[in-house]
């Protein structure tokens, strides 16, 4: 499994939600607080799953709702 970085996640976010202002996105900013809708979020998780070669179950989605949470979640897998 590849280690994922904040920079990689930000690149994924820029790809799935190109209109989003990444400057407003801190590593601890909840995706609920920015204009990342559910489809963008699905797309982001798909990129993360493919990159890290993991499966993120529906029950774990709340553990993945910020950049730093995704890093921690992937590291724990």
């Amino acid at each position, binding site marked *: 499994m590849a280690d994922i970085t904040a920079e990689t996640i930000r690149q994924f976010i820029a790809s799935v939600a190109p209109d989003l202002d990444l400057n407003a996105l801190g590593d601890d900013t909840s995706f609920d607080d920015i204009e990342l*809708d*559910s*489809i963008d979020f*699905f*797309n982001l*998780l*798909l990129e993360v*799953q*493919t990159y890290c070669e993991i499966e993120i179950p*529906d029950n774990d*989605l709340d553990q993945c709702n910020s950049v730093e949470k995704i890093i921690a979640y992937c590291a724990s897998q």
Partner: protein
Amino acid sequence: MNIHTIESFIPSYCIDNVARALQFGIQDQALATKIGPRKLPVLDAALEPSDMVVQSVEKACKSAAFDTSSLQALVVVSQNGDGAETIPHVSAIAHGKLSLGTDVLAFDVGLGCSGYVYGLVILSGLMKQMGIERAALVTADPYSRIINPEDRSTSLLFGDAATTTILDPTGKWQVGHAILQTDGSKRDHIKTVARTFEMNGRQVFSFAATQVPEQIRQLLTEVSLTEQDIDQYCIHQGSGAIVRAIAAKFPAVSDRFPCEMAETGNTVSSSIPLLLQPRLNDEGLRKLVLSGFGIGLSWGSMLIERVG
């Protein structure tokens, strides 16, 4: 076997999906780019799925200048029977309403959004096996009957429509190689509970965005064609987001994935033939890939080629 004619029946009454989206707090731009439909056709309460079949078959036969009595088989892709019943099957009811002869075989195919590709494989194989010269593949599934209007994840997506594809040896588009797959371990991601439709949007999105591009690539390998050899990829119009997500997996040809669901929504097994209908007479198109995906979960992709 070849595709001769495609005609459709789209109900005239439509839900204003822009207004419905606003009720869920979804603005116009998000509706257009992420979801897709601005209008959702709804089958009149006085009509049944079999009536959609009858109307689209009669329209197709008239368009092709064929008498309905020349049909030797009627295959209907549908999961919603007339009324609240599933017995008898829709194709038998339509068979009776069309007054077809007893030598005209009729059966249903119980699939959703993958049903058109599966149906083409089933019917073209059956025609070859039985020496049938002319047959109708009908898609007719009024999901408005099973959608919960309060369900944000589905009520903005689905529209009602029916299509009829007439197959016979004189058609200009040859039904070609296909791949059909099913993953029953994921069957609960799209289902009905007490006749109400439920869908796990995230799982279905992930499935489609990964499995469908993989299957299309496998199909191209098996027919020794490249991405660039295909003029257009007519894939199931699940949502604007899913069409774009699949197209994005083919960056060199992503502009060859039409997304045309603004006026109809996701019409289940009818979405691919609705895309094909205006393209059949486009002389600039020679090779098309069709791909449907959904309930089962099941997915199927097929090459069709212009021969005339």
